[in-house]
């Protein structure tokens, strides 16, 4: 690039530094009239004088020469070429970069970011369809990119822009750049961490699930009249997750009070862990008995037991995984699970043997029960919830009917299922 704008940049920097021409000339040891010629690009400058002027302006000499600007100009040229339907004034590009190096750098940086994000959009489109959180993140990124693109183009293309508008758009650009940085970072974190076992993405239910897993779903603090406040929730990062966890722990505390651990252990040892027998013995409802059995220490129930809790919309509120029974992380579970069929017959305990399609043919005994979680008021419909206990079955009797269920339509190979929501990604017979 021609080194024709060093003078303009010196003038720009001098004005930013709040120095008069005479003051800078004195600091650099030259006459004001000579500096005036330099500032109007009528005298070439280099060597010691350039270093002296740069020192007086407290900048690196390279800031005043073409090095940085060449990169900038090239990035701005790319931005102009990529701008569909925009006719940027390429003749004025060097002047723009020379007069507003900071904003030109912001524009170049934003363009690089937009290019990179646009490239990612195509790759992510499939996941976008199936993950609402990702869809929201992408919407945020693209909206911010749209705002930056429009604002930057206005600043670059409008010669006679009023000072008030220019200032406002500069402020908007800065604001959007910050926002884009934050949303991009959140998106990267999301993508980086979505394949890990524990997924602290800020979704309260997932954070709570991870917390319960670290505690192995056991809370001795809640036995013998213990209070929820005695449980350390320090590992939960968000107020929302703490609120969800506290709500679940309150339920478990009430269950522990209604069914004291020693008495449950003694009953299970003598009579077995059948939930309906336990409910009758302790005079509690079926939901309490199911939750209590699902979250008992393995020393009492002798084998791992899973649990699923959902509301009437089918949204999963709580999961305790059990080996061999796949449970989707983001809801959208198989509608054939007994926890959902129980919602069709509230207050009727459901018991089914199920086997998950497409997996090693392990059989599970599921107990499910739906109950009105709230009493909204007279003549008002209650909000129902449903709970399911999932227990592995070692041996099934020959006459026990077994229902085939899946985990999620997308990974279920059953092509005759009448409850299918969407096609499977697995080939037939997988």
């Amino acid at each position: 690039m021609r080194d024709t704008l060093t003078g303009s940049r010196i003038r720009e920097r001098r004005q930013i530094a709040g120095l008069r021409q005479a003051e800078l000339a004195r600091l650099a040891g030259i006459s004001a009239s000579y500096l005036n010629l330099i500032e109007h690009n009528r005298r070439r400058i280099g060597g010691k004088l350039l270093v002296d002027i740069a020192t007086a302006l407290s900048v690196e000499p390279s800031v005043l020469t073409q090095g940085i600007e060449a990169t900038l100009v090239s990035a701005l040229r790319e931005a102009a070429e990529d701008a569909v339907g925009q006719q940027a004034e390429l003749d004025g590009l060097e002047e723009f970069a020379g007069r507003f190096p900071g904003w030109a750098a912001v524009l170049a940086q934003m363009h690089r970011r937009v290019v990179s994000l646009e490239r990612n959009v195509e790759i992510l489109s499939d996941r976008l369809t199936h993950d609402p959180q990702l869809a929201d993140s992408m919407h945020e990124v693209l909206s911010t990119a749209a705002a930056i693109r429009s604002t930057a183009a206005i600043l670059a293309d409008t010669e006679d822009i009023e000072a008030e508008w220019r200032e406002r758009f500069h402020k908007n650009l800065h604001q959007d750049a910050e926002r884009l940085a934050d949303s991009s970072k959140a998106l990267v974190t999301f993508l980086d961490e979505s394949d890990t076992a524990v997924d602290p993405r800020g979704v309260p239910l997932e954070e709570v699930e991870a917390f319960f897993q670290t505690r192995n779903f056991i809370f001795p603090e809640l036995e013998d009249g213990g209070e929820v406040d005695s449980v350390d929730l320090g590992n939960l990062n968000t107020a929302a997750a703490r609120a969800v966890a506290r709500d679940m722990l309150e339920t478990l505390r009430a269950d522990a009070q209604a069914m004291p651990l020693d008495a449950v252990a003694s009953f299970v040892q003598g009579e077995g862990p059948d939930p309906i027998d336990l409910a009758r013995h302790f005079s509690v409802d079926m939901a309490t008995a199911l939750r209590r059995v699902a979250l008992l220490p393995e020393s009492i129930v002798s084998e791992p037991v899973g649990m699923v809790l959902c509301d009437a919309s089918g949204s999963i509120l709580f999961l305790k995984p059990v080996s061999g029974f796949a449970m989707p992380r983001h809801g959208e579970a198989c509608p054939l699970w007994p926890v959902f069929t129980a919602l069709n017959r509230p207050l009727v305990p459901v018991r089914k043997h199920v086997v998950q399609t497409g997996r090693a043919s392990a059989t599970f005994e599921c107990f499910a029960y739906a109950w009105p979680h709230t009493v909204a008021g007279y003549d008002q419909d209650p909000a129902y919830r449903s709970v399911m206990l999932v227990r592995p079955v070692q041996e099934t009797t020959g006459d026990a009917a077994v229902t085939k269920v899946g985990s999620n339509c997308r990974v279920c190979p059953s092509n005759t299922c009448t409850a299918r929501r969407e096609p499977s990604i697995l080939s037939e017979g997988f």
Partner: protein
Amino acid sequence: MSRKVLLIEDEPNIAEAIRFLLTREGWQVEIHGDGTDALQVIQGAQPDLVILDVMLPGKSGMDILRDLREMEELASLPVLMLTARGQSRDREMAENAGVSRFMTKPFSNAEVLTAVRDLHAQATQM
């Protein structure tokens, strides 16, 4: 009489940029950032053209468009729809709902200006 565009967009910096561009083109620009009462605002403002974001708080742009097309006095109002979701099924949904022009974010200023000019020219020729 000046031409009026109603911009229904909850992203203030996008709204500000579009307002600047269209004001310079001689448009009177009104901005509204919420989907809930957007239909009433359209009825009250009586714009020559509506620019409608899809993802709005309260009510989606797609639902607003469907309701709008069922109202006799607004059935032929030009609507330019903006969305960050450029998938073909979204475009198809918008077309089925009666959109006049569909544009995905991030769009260029020239695209917006051209679309607005075209839609207005088509509407005035009718």
